[in-house]
């Protein structure tokens, strides 16, 4: 297990950070959160083509860049820091699911289109029950016809390619789960953008009324598990970036803001809050990076480590968000101050793929406690 990045990995981080500093400053985030698409297609293509972020961790033989989840984690930390508005998480879900579920040739064909930023794809998994696992799928596949509803589909409003988890008639639990591929404009599909608490991450509801689709895997539960583990690790890294950005903002403000003739950061109430926050953020960072390394190295404990990382990073990001507002005082809950943008990302990240409490219980189950 590696506990430090290689010089190449550090250079990759620098490149991503420079790019995002340039192309995703707060003003751009504010512009895109009001944009219906929620991202700038030109910037996304550039990210795919210059930085390889469209399918970074997917093996080259399956249409990706052939890097590891470690590099994916680095990218997500940076994207969280910059609060990037782009279809990167949906791309991870889609490309991972396809790379895991399809044969190599088919995967290469589909993923390579996503990788270059020409095709947007979304994984349609969650339904009204709010579950993030194969066992929660209720949408029915009757032969090659899909009927049912998906919701909370990340970037589902703009994706052209939908990867849909469906259930064979009469099956239960993780049995009988298939993945289907269908274009978003196929007859019988209705989709609608959902209003989100975090306007920087767009979600959609998609209804399927007897929609003809192509089955790409008829035993998709293992692929979905792996996909969600990778996605949890990615979001954990993103939330670490979010938490770090919030901590830095809080510390910077605490150094500048004067009250009672002193910088507020010289008061122990603020100072110790920041110290506790740094500890929590550093612990979360270790957990997220360890989980990413575990995915890279094929550690069979990944499900547990992914849950541990997701729970820890969520809690750290929410605490950072709350404390950052608190340290800013009144200005911190105004619209014009940027803190609430990160706060909302942290809040939505807390619920995405399961709350921290849910992941802690899953961790205990993985570890057979």
């Amino acid at each position, binding site marked *: 297990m590696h506990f430090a990045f290689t010089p190449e990995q550090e250079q990759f981080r620098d490149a991503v950070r420079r790019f995002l500093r340039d192309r995703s400053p707060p003003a751009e985030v504010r512009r895109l959160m009001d944009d219906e698409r929620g991202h700038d297609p030109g910037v996304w293509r550039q990210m795919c083509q210059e930085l390889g972020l469209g399918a970074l961790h997917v093996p080259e033989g399956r249409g990706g860049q052939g890097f590891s989840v470690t590099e994916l984690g680095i990218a997500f930390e940076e994207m969280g820091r910059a609060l990037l508005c782009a279809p990167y998480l949906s791309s991870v879900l889609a490309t991972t699911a396809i790379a895991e579920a399809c044969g190599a040739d088919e995967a290469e064909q589909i993923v390579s289109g996503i990788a270059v930023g020409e095709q947007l794809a979304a994984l349609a998994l969650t339904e009204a029950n709010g579950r993030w696992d194969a066992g929660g799928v209720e949408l029915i596949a009757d032969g090659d016809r899909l009927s049912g509803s998906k919701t909370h589909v990340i970037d589902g409003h703009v994706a052209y390619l939908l990867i849909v988890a469906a259930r064979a008639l009469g099956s239960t639990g993780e049995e009988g789960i298939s993945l289907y591929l269908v274009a978003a404009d196929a007859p019988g599909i209705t989709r609608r953008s959902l209003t989100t*608490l975090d306007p920087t991450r767009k979600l959609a509801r998609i209804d399927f009324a007897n929609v003809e689709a192509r089955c790409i895997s008829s035993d998709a539960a293992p692929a979905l598990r792996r996909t969600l583990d990778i996605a949890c690790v990615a979001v954990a890294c993103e939330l670490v970036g979010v938490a770090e950005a919030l901590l830095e903002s809080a510390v910077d403000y605490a150094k500048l803001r004067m009250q009672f003739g002193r910088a507020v950061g010289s008061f122990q109430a603020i100072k110790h809050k920041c110290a506790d926050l740094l500890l929590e953020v550093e612990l979360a960072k270790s957990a997220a990076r360890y989980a990413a390394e575990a995915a890279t190295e094929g550690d069979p404990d990944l499900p547990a480590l992914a849950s541990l990382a997701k729970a820890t990073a969520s809690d750290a990001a929410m605490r950072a968000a709350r404390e950052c507002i*608190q340290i800013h005082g009144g200005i911190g809950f105004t619209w014009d101050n940027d803190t609430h943008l990160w706060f909302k990302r942290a809040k939505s990240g807390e619920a995405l793929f399961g709350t921290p409490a849910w992941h802690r219980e899953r961790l205990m189950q993985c570890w057979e406690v």
Partner: protein
Amino acid sequence: MSETASADPSADSVRREVRQWLEANWDPNEDLVAWRNLLADSGWGMPVWPRQWHGRDLPQALAPVVDEEFARLGAVGVAKTGIRLLAAATLLEHGSDAHKARFLRRILTGEDTWCQLFSEPGSGSDLAGATTRADRHGDHFLVNGQKVWTTSAHHADYGLLLARTDWDVPKHQGLTYFVLDMHQEGVDVRPLKQMNGHASFNQVFFTDAVVPAENLVSAVGNGWQVAITTLMHERRGADGLRGVQRERDLPGRIYEQEREEIAVALEPYKWYPQRAGRVDLVLERAQATGRNTDPATRQEIAKLLTMARSAEWTARRARAAQQQGRPQGPEGSLGKLASSNIARQASHVHTLIAGANAMLAGEDGDLNGLIAEILVSVPATSIAGGTDEIQRNIIAERVLGLPKEPRMDTGPFRDVKRN
């Protein structure tokens, strides 16, 4: 000892007197302002105020008797919304007779609305660090600077202004307290949008705004002492919700006028219940979503309800102690700190209950977006009205008697570090 008012020898005679007066005068079809002028004349609108100024000099302990008689008939009282009564209390204590004659009646009738111009972008926790300046020019002052967090400034007629008149003395000694006419060119009121999308507060910008010298409430340089009076009355009112809310829509012209008045006054406060975390919704949400069967969520709900109930009982203990005649202390700060904790825990519980739906808002969110609004409103609780950190200082220093921190702002204000 119970909570109800103790039996005072004169309670019965007061009750008889107010009942007779109300029975003779109360008319639900009267015009609101006309009725309140009658209240101001009779003294029954503010019975604990001095007789000279629209009151009857009643002791505080007898006020509930008068309230009970008003309630019995459903009689409307004087205007109480907004900060008008803080303004009145301050003027009663520090204003000249001319101020009292000019302002008090129209405060009580509801014809004038007031706002409080204390907080500034650079002085939030540190109110005495205000840098809005008031410079004397003969018989008037010119005001320049900026205030913030000013509820109702957009429809206020007058503002209670704390401004700096001397930069060469320590900060508490260079402030002066004025009544400022909000209807003038030099005053620019702009709404301040919060992270939850509401704009409950305003920013107020002054560019050579004019205050005639007769509007001085404090002596020049003595404004902090007057401000403390206002703040003390504000804190005293902080233990419960202010404002009158009638149980049902009563018929009659005066009730219609009162409802309209209250609606306008409460408009800026409409997100306040969300800010407090809406503990009342927790059980029904848990049951509706089935999350009440999750043991980890049950623990968090139990912690929340325990805090909320205990805080309520603590407030009632404080009130009961007051009724026994013990002086009101800084318990308000304890209650405020408890509210922060409760709101934070409520937000946490709502997130657990909402699960994936915590990501949604507006019409797509749970309870038509109300849950999302709770989640993005709660962070204000621990800041607005005095941060948790300030409350902890007050509790530690004034209740527990712990020593103050060394001060870095005791020299001439001009030399104090500030933003």
